[in-house]
């Protein structure tokens, strides 16, 4: 339990380091150190915050609420041989609701600043996430049908080879569309560019623009944990192997997460950011894939 939390909390920012190094490798640069995100978070935690006079308590609460919601969602997901500490019938809905809560407060905080620039980011975030959430739920539906359970611990994790051999097509489609959802939810490159502060490219970054000091540290850290949680969800579907030896499972899981981070880095290096109207087509493409997966699952099971 303690080891599980430690892995999740300590290794989450490391994924961003791996993505950064992969992108630097493709660009022929040295890149920032693997631990840069840790340095950033520590630096920001030691600073003070600046608050605009137009903001209210919502602006101060939002980073804390979003961090708390993302950490709570980490409790619901089993990974690397560790069972989820909290697990009950229907916890997949709560899992999605935590992400929704975090996003809702970030959008309110962005509107709270009274800046039209931040309002633009909030509106883009709302528009894209309302489609990507449907895709996530379609994938949940497919997993529910395949596992005949509505609890994340049974839907993923305990999955083993038999369900891959029987349901390979469905699972491949679930993995593909979940990967796109992961890119959308974490504002990675085809959807949003986390590295720039240009008006045209910003969705997530623009909402964090007025936050400073510890608040910004919380937002960066919550983003890292969110990437870790969704990545763990994906890796648990993709790597059904479970040896029931704590250390082997942990190694398999962690190397899976590492490879996932490298895959994200490769996608980011190989693709340009899409035009805003193309982003919709991109997410709708993942919706069609998820729908296809659900249909295959229904056709096989019923």
């Amino acid at each position, binding site marked *: 339990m303690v080891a599980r939390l430690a892995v999740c909390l300590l290794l989450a920012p490391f994924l961003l380091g791996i993505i950064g190094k992969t992108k630097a490798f493709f660009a022929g640069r040295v890149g920032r150190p693997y631990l840069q995100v840790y340095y950033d978070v520590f630096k920001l935690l030691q600073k003070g915050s600046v608050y605009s006079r137009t903001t209210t308590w919502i602006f101060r609460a939002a980073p804390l609420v979003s961090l708390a919601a993302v950490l709570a969602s980490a409790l619901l997901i089993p990974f690397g041989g560790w069972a989820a500490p909290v697990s009950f019938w229907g916890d997949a809905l709560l899992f999605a609701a935590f992400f929704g809560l975090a996003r809702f407060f970030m959008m309110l905080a962005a509107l709270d600043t009274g800046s039209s620039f931040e309002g633009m980011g909030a509106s883009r975030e709302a528009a894209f996430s309302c489609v990507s959430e449907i895709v996530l739920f379609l994938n949940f539906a497919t997993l529910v049908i395949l596992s005949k359970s509505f609890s994340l611990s049974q839907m993923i994790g305990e999955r083993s080879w038999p369900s891959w051999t029987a349901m390979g*097509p469905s699972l491949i489609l679930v993995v593909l569309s979940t990967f796109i959802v992961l890119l959308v939810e974490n504002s990675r490159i085809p959807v949003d560019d986390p590295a720039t502060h240009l008006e045209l490219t910003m969705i997530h970054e623009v909402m964090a623009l007025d936050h400073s000091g510890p608040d910004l540290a919380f937002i960066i850290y919550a983003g890292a944990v969110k990437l870790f949680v969704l990545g763990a969800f994906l890796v648990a579907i993709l790597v059904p192997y479970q040896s029931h030896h704590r250390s082997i499972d942990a190694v398999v899981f962690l190397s899976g997460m590492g490879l996932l981070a490298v895959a994200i880095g490769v996608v980011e290096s190989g693709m340009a950011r899409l035009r805003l*109207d193309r982003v919709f*087509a991109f997410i709708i*493409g993942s*919706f*069609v894939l998820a729908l*296809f997966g659900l*249909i295959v699952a229904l056709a096989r099971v019923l």
Partner: protein
Amino acid sequence: MSPLWLDLVLTVIVILAICLLSAVRLGLIIRLFAFQSLVMAAIPLMLGGGFGVHNAVIAAGTILIKAILIPAILFWAIRHVSIRRDAPAVFGISTSLLLGGVLVGLSFLFSSALVPADKPFSDLLIPSAFATLFIGFLLLVSRKKAITQVVGYLVMENGIFLFALLLLETTPLLVELGIFLDIFVGVFIMGIVINHIQSEFDHMDTSQLTTLKG
């Protein structure tokens, strides 16, 4: 249960058809079609007969004609008319993707109503044949440039090919070779037609062919 690899190949074929719906650059469209044909060439080798002469000839013919020759002709055609992008479709990419999703659903609905005489090698074979056929048809009717319409026709043909695989063991080799030749000649003629449309009207947007030129 049907073999996993066959299922995965069929899924990849439908995924590539969905990707075709979202593609705008002509080079990408042709490459996606070539890749779809290449993946499809693996199917005859996975079916019941295994590595027979018949299956091997079908696979080799698919690779040679659909994955190499036809894309080469299409690339030659777009080089000659020197265009890179498709005109915007009749409806946007999002709409055609959504329609593609609906068509995939419908193809599963239709194929559940069909009862094949022989048990097919995979229960996904007929639905994915329908889905590829429908998506090819959607490309054919929704895009405006002649090249994309040709690719739509070829994707439809890929769907028909998937259907024909059900009869692989009973169809004489000669018939299949005849079909290959037909497609090849068809695409060859369409390539020439595209060039003529281009030289006559300075574009290859077929939606403007209905307006009279004085």
